[in-house]
């Protein structure tokens, strides 16, 4: 096939990008070379629209061993232990083929983690679907949940937490973000940087097939009516092979045979070989006839672009080939020496004894285009004054029930019942709490992790929204007694070529960065997913934040279920009653305008650290952060979890009770303490200038208001637990 501008455009390259390629090479590329450029220069691999702004993220900290730029981030959790973690999107494939798209998303992120030498110990996910009434939503949800479960359950890694949201902006673009945490000895971390020349380059894992060709370019384009035709670009997962690959790699990693290792993810053999050579400032030479292929007569073009799953590329220490081969033979996996490292600083490919590619590595990596795209600043929306009569006809009990059964608040047990969350025998906080918690096997330590996003806040004002999600992640970790350490972010946005979408991206990133810096909660890994747009309709800006924290002694972990009648519950942090952009305003008052709640980073940090201090002094019996739905939803969830009741104190002052109960002010927690500990708690709170209110006390049954309204916990539980199951069964 002759290469020309049209062929280049068909490969997703822009006119001027094609011209740049020809200029760099000083000739016309052949079709294999063009394919390699298109794979390396697309948005998904090159971060060409986002790179400029990602540089501003706060990525450093005392506990950071590895920040962004590797297969995953690494943090120090004391002794010789380190946690490797990352979140990644698999949005486009999941919309086209939900089961395989979600499954391979989970498989891909686990490979990123065990590539670094870590055994995966927990999975999480953040999934977003269109309106429940949309005709595709139910099947997409069912397929995605089955795919996530099908992969993670088979590997035997517990899925410990997640988030599921519905909003009509995802009708044509669902989001599937998967996160994995792994445990590694910090002296045995493996990186992707190759070193040394004439070292054997090894291909291990599954055979290469024709699946997933152009996957990365598909993920870098908007959808149109013809998306069904893109099904063949979705990869097919085989978790069984991945389990074998995991065990074989960890076995080989037990000694020092491996110089560098990289999984073949997006853009398969192309990006893995280029990245290893680029990081090591080396060249790489491969004989494509040696690549184990699943199908006959695969061309160099297909071999280089295939996104077949469960494959790894390894640069081995010379002389270790036999030993390594033995391990892969034991696990019945393909093992082939396909090339070597060179000092040419080029990628050179041979096929049928002919040179089919000769490109300097720099052209693909460092010379890849970087765009400073135009973006539009988004102003803080004007405040809305709610009128008294708007609340007059409302009954608090009806509002509460409606919110508890709202799709974005209700219990998601239908989902996590399908995920193995207890395998590995160390899950001490299951899905459904503020964070999932797993013990570090054989030690007294535990790690907590949660994943959060707040698309409505980000849509209303990206800068505040960006800050808010980082804070919410921080609160969710503190609520289980964990010290927050670091985050990973998955930045899901619309089309970056549109100024508004680009503005949402730039300002969300700015918000994330400010909050991370202030809270000393750095970003260590992540990915960007642009072009979440179908027929000109983009998604709401949806950065997902995966937070990780550490609990020094797992016996001190806190949960959200109320412990004993007679105990008091305090609201930590000031309640102003901010209703704009709250779920109450949207669902009860039908008001979608206004600014999201203000994020005060000083209060966020001060309140959080003070709650941790009280936990360390063993004053806190249970804790739950106050987020979507406000105080009343939060206390109801605590009651439902423990099957206990609650008596609310009379509100002080002239606060509107709807604002007080349903406002979504930030930096707040509910904590349960024993009566006799109240004075100690008061001393710490006042000593740290933290505002608090006494909300009421734990009783045996019912939620009782001061005006004698009584709500049965069973009724509330029905509202909370039945929506999703009913929706999926009908």
């Amino acid at each position, binding site marked *: 096939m002759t290469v020309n501008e049209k062929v280049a455009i068909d490969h997703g390259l822009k006119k001027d990008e094609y011209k740049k390629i020809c200029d760099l090479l000083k000739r016309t590329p052949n079709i294999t070379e063009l394919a390699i450029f298109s794979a390396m220069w697309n948005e998904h691999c090159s971060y060409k629209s986002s790179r400029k702004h990602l540089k501003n993220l706060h990525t450093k900290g005392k506990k950071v061993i590895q920040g962004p730029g590797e297969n995953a981030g690494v943090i120090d959790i004391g002794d010789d232990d380190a946690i490797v973690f990352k979140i990644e999107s698999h949005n486009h494939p999941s919309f086209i083929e939900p089961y395989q798209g979600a499954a391979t998303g989970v498989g891909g992120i686990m490979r990123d983690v065990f590539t670094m030498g870590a055994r995966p110990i927990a999975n999480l996910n953040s999934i977003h679907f269109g309106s429940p009434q949309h005709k595709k939503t139910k099947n997409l949800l069912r397929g995605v949940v089955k795919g996530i479960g099908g992969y993670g359950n088979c590997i035997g890694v517990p899925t410990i937490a997640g988030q599921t949201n519905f909003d009509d902006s995802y009708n044509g673009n669902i989001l599937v973000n998967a996160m994995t945490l792994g445990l590694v000895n910090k002296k045995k971390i493996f990186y992707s940087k190759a070193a040394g020349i004439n070292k054997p380059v090894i291909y291990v894992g599954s055979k290469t097939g024709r699946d997933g060709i152009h996957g990365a370019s598909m993920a870098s384009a908007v959808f149109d009516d013809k998306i069904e035709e893109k099904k063949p670009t979705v990869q097919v997962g085989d978790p*069984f092979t991945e389990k074998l690959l995991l065990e074989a790699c960890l076995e080989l990693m037990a000694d020092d045979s491996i110089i560098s290792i990289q999984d073949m993810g997006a853009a398969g053999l192309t990006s893995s070989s280029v990245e290893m050579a680029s990081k090591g400032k080396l060249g790489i030479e491969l004989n494509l006839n040696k690549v184990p292929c699943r199908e006959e007569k695969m061309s160099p073009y297909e071999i280089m672009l295939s996104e077949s799953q469960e494959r790894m590329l390894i640069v081995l220490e010379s002389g270790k080939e036999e030993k390594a081969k033995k391990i892969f033979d034991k696990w019945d996996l393909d093992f082939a020496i396909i090339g070597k490292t060179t000092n040419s600083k080029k990628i050179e490919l041979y096929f049928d004894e002919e040179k089919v590619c000769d490109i300097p590595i720099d052209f693909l990596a460092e010379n890849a285009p970087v765009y400073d795209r135009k973006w539009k600043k988004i102003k803080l929306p004007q405040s809305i004054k709610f009128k008294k009569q708007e609340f007059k006809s409302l009954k608090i009990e009806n509002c509460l029930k409606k919110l508890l059964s709202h799709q974005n608040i209700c219990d998601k047990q239908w989902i996590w019942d399908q995920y193995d969350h*207890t395998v590995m*025998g160390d899950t001490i906080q299951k899905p459904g709490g503020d964070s999932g918690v797993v013990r570090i096997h054989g030690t007294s330590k535990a790690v907590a992790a949660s994943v959060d996003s707040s698309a409505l806040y980000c849509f209303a004002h990206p800068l505040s929204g960006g800050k808010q999600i980082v804070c919410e992640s921080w609160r969710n970790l503190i609520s289980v007694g964990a010290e927050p350490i670091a985050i990973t972010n998955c930045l899901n946005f619309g089309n970056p070529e549109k100024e508004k979408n680009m503005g949402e991206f730039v300002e969300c990133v700015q918000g994330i960065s400010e909050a991370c810096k202030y809270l000393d909660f750095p970003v260590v890994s992540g990915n960007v997913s642009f072009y979440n747009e179908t027929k000109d309709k983009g998604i709401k800006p949806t950065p997902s934040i995966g937070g990780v924290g550490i609990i020094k002694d797992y016996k001190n972990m806190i949960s959200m279920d109320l412990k004993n009648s007679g105990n008091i519950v305090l609201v930590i942090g000031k309640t102003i009653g901010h209703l704009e952009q709250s779920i109450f305003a949207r669902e009860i008052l039908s008001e979608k305008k206004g600014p999201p709640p203000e994020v005060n980073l000083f209060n966020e940090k001060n309140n959080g650290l003070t709650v941790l201090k009280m936990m360390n002094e063993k004053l806190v019996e249970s804790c739950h952060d106050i987020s979507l739905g406000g105080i009343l939803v939060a206390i109801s969830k605590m009651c439902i979890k423990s099957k206990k009741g609650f008596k609310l104190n009379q509100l002080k002052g002239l606060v509107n009770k709807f604002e007080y109960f349903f406002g979504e002010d930030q930096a707040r927690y509910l904590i349960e303490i024993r009566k006799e500990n109240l004075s100690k708690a008061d001393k710490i709170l006042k000593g740290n200038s933290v505002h608090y209110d006494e909300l009421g006390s734990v009783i045996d049954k019912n939620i009782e208001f001061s005006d004698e309204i009584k709500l049965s916990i069973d009724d509330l539980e029905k509202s909370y637990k039945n929506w999703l199951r009913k929706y999926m069964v009908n």
Partner: protein
Amino acid sequence: MKSSVIIFPGSNCDRDMDVALKKFGFKNTMVWHNDDKLPKSDLIVLPGGFSYGDYLRCGSIAGKSKIINSVIDFAKTGGLVLGICNGFQILTETGLLPGVLLQNKNIEFICKNVFVKINDKNNKYFNKINKEILELHIAHNEGNYFCSDDELKEIENNNQIAAYYCDEKGNCDNDSNPNGALKNIAGILNKEKNILGMMPHPERMIDKYLSGEDGSIFFKNLLKNLKI
């Protein structure tokens, strides 16, 4: 007491079982599926997971693996063989236990705590166990036990049903049946009562910080019975 846990490619509860057995005092050895000999053992465990990817049918390829011949010989001479989850599926595939495990009735993977009522105590596993209803954990896609009418009659007559799914109070009905299993059957024994297969995972319930600790009762009791 010595135990051995077989590792098949795709097993994923092998480590959890190893941890549990050692915690309660077994000297445990891990055995690779491609070995042909078993170490001297008082108990062989086939752990949970997805042996050979559960391709073809759950447990069917493991049922034809190299090590399985030694397991069958060991079982036929009266040796204790315990199969949990995928291990149970393997035992039915080898024919050591009657019946099959179908896909769950709701066609979904189920991971949750369940209660089981011990039915037969006339065996090394449950003899003198001091609790009638245990809270255990299930995590499977194919745990829906099924067998023919004749087989059912036979296993009922021989008291081969080890445990039934039930509720907290011990009622066995549709509501307390998580996966559609025939007669709420959660586990069965062979005629000689030396082979036990069950879907629930006792190894996931061995300390109070986990989903529960009734699994401890099972292991402690088993060890005590083996020592007699």
